[in-house]
């Protein structure tokens, strides 16, 4: 143990997935890391300060794992940290092993492996409330005596046992309590000695007996990589020979560890843990008879998704109108103040208020979507969804574990891409990373609702509008499956991997957790609106406002003087300025690229400006249409401005710019395109720049193709049906 006073004592939180490590971490450090009722929520190491009983610790939250025989990247993080293999980091000073009180023996398997690495330990017997309900009784004092380490009964969600935990951790750090060793049979000791001798001969760095046991039992152990094996020589013969020592004694090297540890733990815990005489049928069991049923389960799944999208569309209405009214009011309030400076007035009213305000209107919908996703995550339904959907994903190289990253991506692709770390197979993981951004994230919602609200709902009704919204969320998924298949077939070739997913018990979600996630998302959205989107909007505004040569006004005024209608003349002047603005010139130059999709120069510009962040399309259109009409006029909403726009040039002159096929093409484009700088950056971090750029390229190509197809087929359909 380090006596260095300048370094804070570091405590790691380890444990099986979904045992409440992050809940405890948040409690102790005041952090707000994501928790959820499914295995694999935490995929990265996170640290925070923890003060307890006058002592200052650094607490480190780790991804959950069943065993130190790590098979996926998130489990590797936990192993590497505990073994002191992470760059620039030493081993932790002590660990708190978070144990689900309803499954003590299974959870202690990991604890006993961690103890083998020589780390002082405290057992946090968490979810004691759930164990009580199931009629499981545990005597912490007795258990502590049997195991040789402090055991603290806890309910992390309620903060029970926190003080006792602080106490126990201080004890463990000071006295270094180690968990009772497994009485290894003689053959294991002999094999370990054999390994140690062989490693020494090869000049590899020395390892502790516990680490040698890891290498012995786990053929793919990461510990081996760090043993300092001399380059060029193959460790396999030595390992094989060491394992033969085990086999000769009748122990299969691959199952010996589990058999020996479980037997030992069974003995240690027998006196302290008792189960109810007659096992009660838990509420989870009863719910699962319906929710994972082969017929009812699927029916409930589809129904639930339908309800989610209907509610997003319908519940948000009143809130959106309220925000819209406030935004419009702000515009009207500031406009007269800035009247002496027309350019500034236009920047504030058309650019900032019209553009950014137009984006903010969509906040309620995003929050409702987040509410539902949080509900699915916290009740425990996510794992059931993975169970129901695995087969559908399986044939194309994704697996049920891709379900969680993909569903997370419906909120935002960034956590989705990160969540792919729970997938063992590196290629299935890469496929998931490439496919996740196709899931329709919440930033696309504004585009869909704008288009649906303006062009689908008026002609087809609210019911179909909700259905359309649902359909847009399925488009990405429908495309993702063949994409994954193609990537798999021609680029990667994944081999089948075990798919084991724990189905957590259903839990009543805590509203506080849910509202916190909604608030986080709201903040993030508003920060984006206040930074990237404002910046983009100001650039767009400048390009759309300038140049302003005086002769345009004079010419139009002279042409129309016979009208004697000042507001009509003003409108015509604004329109004329818009048509000769820098943005219009650039847009018209680029428009041919998107002409096959039916986009005019304004949509083209909007689409291109949205590559850093999708929402920019809304603010761009808001700014263009804002500048394009008189700012003093009662500011119309964007939705009706869209319906009143007509082509001024070219073969479609005089026809409305937005028709149903155009609106659909715009939606399809946004559904399929990777217009999010932050996602590309995360993909690069997780899979490398080459794959990030590949993802960006294939999605852009698909988006263009999808938009063109939609517009062309839609137009054909319109012609045919009329």
């Amino acid at each position, binding site marked *: 143990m380090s006596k260095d006073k300048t370094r804070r004592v570091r405590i790691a939180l380890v444990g099986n997935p979904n045992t409440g490590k992050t809940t405890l971490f948040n409690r102790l450090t005041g952090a707000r890391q994501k928790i959820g009722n499914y295995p694999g929520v935490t995929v990265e190491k996170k640290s925070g300060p923890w003060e307890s009983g006058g002592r200052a610790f650094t607490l480190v939250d780790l991804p959950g794992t069943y065993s130190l025989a790590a098979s996926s990247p998130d489990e590797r993080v936990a192993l590497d940290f505990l073994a002191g293999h992470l760059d620039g980091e030493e081993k932790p000073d002590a660990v708190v092993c978070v144990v689900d009180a309803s499954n003590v023996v299974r959870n202690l398997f990991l604890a006993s492996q961690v103890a083998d690495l020589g780390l002082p330990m405290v057992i946090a017997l968490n979810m004691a409330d759930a164990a009580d309900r199931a009629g499981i009784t545990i005597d912490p004092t007795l258990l502590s005596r049997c195991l040789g380490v402090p055991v603290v009964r806890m309910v992390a969600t309620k903060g029970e046992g926190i003080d006792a935990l602080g106490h126990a951790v201080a004890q463990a750090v000071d006295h270094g309590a180690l968990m009772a060793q497994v009485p290894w049979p003689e053959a294991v000791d002999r094999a370990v000695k054999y390994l140690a001798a062989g490693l020494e001969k090869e000049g590899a760095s020395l390892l502790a007996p516990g680490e040698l046991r890891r290498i012995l039992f786990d053929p793919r152990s990461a510990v081996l990589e760090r043993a300092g094996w001399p380059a060029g020589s193959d460790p396999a013969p030595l390992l094989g020979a060491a394992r033969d020592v085990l086999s000769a004694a009748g122990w299969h090297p691959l199952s010996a560890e589990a058999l020996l540890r479980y037997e030992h733990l069974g003995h240690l815990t027998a006196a302290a843990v008792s189960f109810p005489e007659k096992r009660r049928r838990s509420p989870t069991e009863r719910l699962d008879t319906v929710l994972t049923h082969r017929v009812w389960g699927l029916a409930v799944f589809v129904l639930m998704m339908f309800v989610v999208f209907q509610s997003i569309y319908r519940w948000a209405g009143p809130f959106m109108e309220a925000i819209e009214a406030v935004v419009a009011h702000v515009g009207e309030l500031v406009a007269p103040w800035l009247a002496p400076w027309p350019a500034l007035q236009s920047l504030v009213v058309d650019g900032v208020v019209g553009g950014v305000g137009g984006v903010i209107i969509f906040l309620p919908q995003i929050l409702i979507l987040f509410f539902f996703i949080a509900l699915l995550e916290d009740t425990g339904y996510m794992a059931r969804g993975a169970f129901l959907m695995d087969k559908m994903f399986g044939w194309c190289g994704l697996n049920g574990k891709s379900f969680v990253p993909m569903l997370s991506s419906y909120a935002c692709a960034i956590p989705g891409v990160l969540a792919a770390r729970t997938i063992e197979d590196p290629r299935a993981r890469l496929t998931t990373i490439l496919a996740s951004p196709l899931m329709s994230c919440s930033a696309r919602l504004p585009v869909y609702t704008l288009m649906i609200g303006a062009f689908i709902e008026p002609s087809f009704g609210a019911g179909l509008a909700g259905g359309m919204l649902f359909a847009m969320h399925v488009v990405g998924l429908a495309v993702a499956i063949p994409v994954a298949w193609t990537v798999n077939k021609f680029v990667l070739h994944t081999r089948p991997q075990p798919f084991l997913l724990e*189905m957590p018990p259903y839990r009543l979600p805590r509203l506080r957790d849910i509202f916190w996630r909604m608030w986080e998302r709201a903040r993030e959205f508003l920060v984006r609106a206040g930074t990237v989107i404002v910046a983009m909007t100001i650039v767009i505004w400048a390009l759309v406002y300038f140049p302003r040569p005086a002769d345009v006004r004079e010419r139009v005024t002279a042409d129309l003087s016979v009208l004697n209608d000042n507001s009509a003349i003003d409108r015509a002047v604004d329109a004329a300025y818009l048509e000769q603005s820098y943005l219009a010139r650039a847009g018209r130059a680029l428009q041919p690229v998107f002409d096959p999709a039916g986009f005019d120069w304004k949509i083209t510009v909007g689409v291109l400006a949205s590559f850093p962040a999708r929402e920019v399309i809304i603010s761009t259109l808001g700014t263009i249409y804002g500048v394009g009409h008189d700012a003093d006029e009662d500011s119309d909403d964007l939705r009706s401005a869209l319906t009143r726009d007509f082509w001024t040039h070219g073969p479609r002159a005089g026809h409305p710019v937005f028709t149903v096929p155009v609106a659909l093409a715009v939606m399809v484009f946004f559904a399929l395109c990777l217009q999010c700088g932050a996602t590309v950056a995360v993909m690069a971090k997780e899979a490398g720049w080459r794959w990030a750029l590949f993802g960006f390229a294939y999605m852009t190509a698909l988006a263009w193709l999808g938009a063109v197809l939609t517009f062309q087929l839609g137009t054909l359909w319109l012609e045919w049906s009329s």
Partner: protein
Amino acid sequence: MSGEICPLAAFRAGDRGLVQPGAPEHPAFQRLLAMGLLPGSEVAVIQVAPLGDPIEIEFGGLRLSLRKSDAAAVQVLRLG
């Protein structure tokens, strides 16, 4: 049929059995061992997914969903 030994993958919803010493070479089997599915422990199949795969099993208070291809690695003695 009670007393018959077969792969876990052959079980239907509601069937129960005792795990037999199996093939630890299978990667799924190693992970299941680490989760406590040891020879001699009781395992039950709870549900089969809509398309016939994966299956949901229960052992030692743990519910797990796994594919039939992985469940094939586990031999079980059927209980009545």
